[in-house]
């Protein structure tokens, strides 16, 4: 009998535990199982109503304008029957750098928003106002300001597969010319020879310029340099000369893809049956690894010695844009993919062999693999004290190049400002808040 009483007590305890647990284990209401995403619905409703900028026009009209009635009808017509809405429009006022929102109009088709609601805000600009941004010109407050884009008609590119140097040059011109005081397309190797001699092509400032080589791993060579001593070591000596000129004129030399200075190209001079890059692209000679070493020698003011033939680079796979580059992407509105593949990342230990050469900007985050640190895309300065004497932007990515990365790299380095017109100008911007609610059900 005693056991039976104990069991009854146990049953009471378990029953109490069940009731207590049931009290707390409240299952959600059926509508919460699969809720309609009201926020998305509200956003997409406003976007659809603004497809042809109709919403932007209506919200700037006075509250008694018939267009508001059209908007009511449109809202009712595009929402499901069990959805009610409340649309509120605020005027955005700017006073003492503070934004104030002043209620303009509110329309709704129900007294309350039912059992569940959500809201979204949408900023619209008046169709009467245009917004623009004026870029600061590099060089307008100091030295330099010239952009040379190598667009030589008598040269061939490599690792720009799918593009021509001309199309890349045109894209670069469109992207970067607003930021430079003067942009010059270097149309042939003769013109390149002229600037290498220190002679401006027009009235531009030659010193402190930026030179972008759009030929990928190949670099154009003027005919006058297709001879000794520049032709020594398969034209590695010419690359040393380029490094020297970059240092002397304090240029920023930009290599857009792959291994810089791997070939020299001049279709007017390299016409022999063997003057090809070993992949069937004629009009160029392979300098190979020596080209980069020789350029760095020249850039860092080291007398020419026959360079090393070992690799300065390593294939490191997928790399990511640095935070500084990402910030520039947002600021300048240029959005290449933040992840790229690098097969020509430059070894930090090799760079350290050159005096006063430092990576001052990482377009891509450096990669460490246990054997060393590698720079997939960086800008290197040759510094003598506080003074910069020549720079190299080397983007060691695999082909095919995304030319926007070169633009992001240069803009990240020079940081020209954008003077934007005030987006919150008076009577120019209104905030539309659409709140949707579900009626019916439980």
């Amino acid at each position, binding site marked *: *009998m*005693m*056991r*039976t009483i*104990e*069991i*009854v007590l*146990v*049953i009471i305890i*378990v*029953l109490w535990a*069940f009731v207590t*647990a*049931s009290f707390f*284990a409240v*299952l*959600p209401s059926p509508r*919460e*199982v*699969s*809720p*309609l*995403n009201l926020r*998305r*619905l509200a956003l*997409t*409703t406003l*976007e*659809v*109503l*603004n*497809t*042809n900028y*109709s*919403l932007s026009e*209506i919200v700037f009209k006075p509250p008694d304008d018939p*267009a508001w*009635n*059209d*908007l*009511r*009808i*449109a*809202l*009712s*017509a*595009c*929402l*499901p*029957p069990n*959805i009610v809405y409340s649309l509120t429009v605020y005027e955005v006022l700017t006073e003492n750098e503070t934004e104030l929102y002043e209620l303009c109009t509110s329309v709704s088709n129900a007294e309350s928003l039912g059992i569940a609601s959500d809201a979204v805000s949408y900023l619209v600009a008046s169709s009467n106002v245009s917004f623009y941004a004026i870029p600061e010109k590099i060089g307008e407050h100091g030295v330099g300001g010239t952009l040379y884009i190598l667009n030589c008609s008598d040269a061939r590119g490599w690792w720009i597969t799918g593009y021509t140097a001309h199309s890349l040059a045109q894209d670069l011109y469109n992207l970067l010319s607003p930021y430079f005081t003067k942009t010059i397309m270097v149309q042939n190797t003769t013109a390149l020879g002229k600037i290498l001699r220190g002679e401006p092509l027009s009235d531009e400032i030659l010193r402190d310029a930026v030179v972008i080589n759009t030929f990928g791993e190949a670099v154009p060579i003027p005919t006058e340099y297709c001879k000794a001593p520049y032709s020594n070591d398969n034209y590695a000596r010419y690359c040393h000369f380029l490094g020297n000129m970059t240092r002397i004129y304090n240029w920023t030399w930009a290599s857009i893809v792959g291994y810089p200075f791997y070939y020299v190209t001049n279709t007017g001079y390299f016409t022999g049956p063997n003057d090809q890059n070993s992949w069937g692209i004629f009009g160029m000679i392979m300098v190979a690894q020596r080209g980069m070493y020789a350029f760095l020698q020249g850039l860092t003011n080291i007398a020419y010695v026959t360079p090393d033939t070992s690799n300065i680079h390593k294939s490191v796979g997928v790399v990511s844009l640095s935070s500084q580059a990402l910030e520039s992407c947002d600021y300048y509105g240029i959005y290449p993919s933040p992840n790229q593949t690098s097969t020509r990342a430059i070894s930090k230990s090799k760079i350290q062999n050159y005096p006063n050469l430092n990576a001052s900007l990482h377009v891509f985050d450096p990669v460490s693999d246990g054997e060393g640190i590698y720079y997939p895309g960086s800008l290197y300065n040759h510094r003598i004290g506080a003074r910069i004497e020549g720079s190299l932007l080397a983007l060691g990515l695999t082909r095919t190049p995304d030319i926007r990365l070169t633009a992001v790299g240069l803009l990240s380095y020079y940081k020209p400002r954008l003077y934007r017109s005030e987006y919150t100008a008076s009577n120019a911007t209104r905030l539309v808040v659409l709140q949707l609610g579900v009626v019916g059900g439980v």
Partner: protein
Amino acid sequence: MTGSTIDHLISLTVFIGALLVFISLFNQTLQTAILYQRQRYLATKCNDLLDNIMLNPGIPSDWGESGNVPIGFGLQDPKFTHYALSPFSLMRLLSFAGNRAYYNGTWYSNVSWGVNGGYLFLRESECVSYDLASKLLGTNGTYGFRLTIMPTVNVTIVEDQSAADHLRLNITVIGQNSPLAGASIKYLLYRISASIPNFVNFTTGMASTDALGFASLEFHNMNVSQNKMAYVFIARVSAGGLYGVGYLARNAVTNAGTIVPYVENSNGTILLVHNPVDSNAALHFNASFYVLSSNFQIANGGVLNITSGPWLVNYGDGKPSFVLQIQPPNNGGFLVVSYWKEDGKNECGMVVVPWGIGIIGLSIVFGGDSAGQGWVATDIRQVAVRGIAYQARLALWSLESYEMMG
């Protein structure tokens, strides 16, 4: 001793019985909770999947226009951002809306089988199938879905039979929830007369709906009785930023039959097929392709016009079809085919073939069948297809079997 044993036996039996009862009670609660979690997860998945489809143009991004087989599935218009869908990608979805069409050994996706005189058959080998889309979305074998993309504004156009001596078109404009009162209507009208069938007359005009979303348009110089005249009427309506489109083509069956167009590929090859009544009768036709701009203007760039014909198809005379080649435009457009039989009866008809969903307001139903599935989550987005308001509804269900209740 015996009493103690009986006491133990009774207590043990009662305890085990009570335990089983409590386990079953808790089991119910736990199963309900697990089911809730599964369904909640399914609803979240539905929401994510819908955004994934709507906000991604696919790979390659122009697969809808180029005719390439996509290796990434998405319907966003590559020329726009946000919830704007490509009319051409939508066109290439294998339709689940009706029976497949079959002609000359080939199956065609049936988006519209002559509804209101509008045809859109696309060769199935050109379409993206549900299986392929499932694989590309990573839902194959895990989830089933059905995507329905239909106009937000329903524009219904019917002939008013009470107008005996002229053509009267009644237009009703209804949204999801209410009529579109006071909506402005802009229309395009192509018409032919059986007496001068080679000449396509074009008219455009404006009107507006009343408080019930209704409008009636009178065309006093048109009389369609006995199929003496035919027309293609396309109307765009708008109110408060909401745009819709509807159409009506007089797809009359002449005594020589009709013409049925089949789209062969994304490069613009269209097969005009004789659908005969009398197999020995020839049907003459003309065809013009019109490019439609985003503001509902006819832009004639790239227009195909073979009205210097007439051409003919004759099923009974070994000429059952005619191959037409158009230049697919970037903005979309529509092909107007007018046909007639040259005999004493002088009957004629017209059909319209849109190039791109959204041009004349067709709907798309794509995906599997949710019948017999346990629980289906749904979600909805407002989207634009070349400026026309559509609603995209996704129904998603799990293909992994689990019981609905314990």
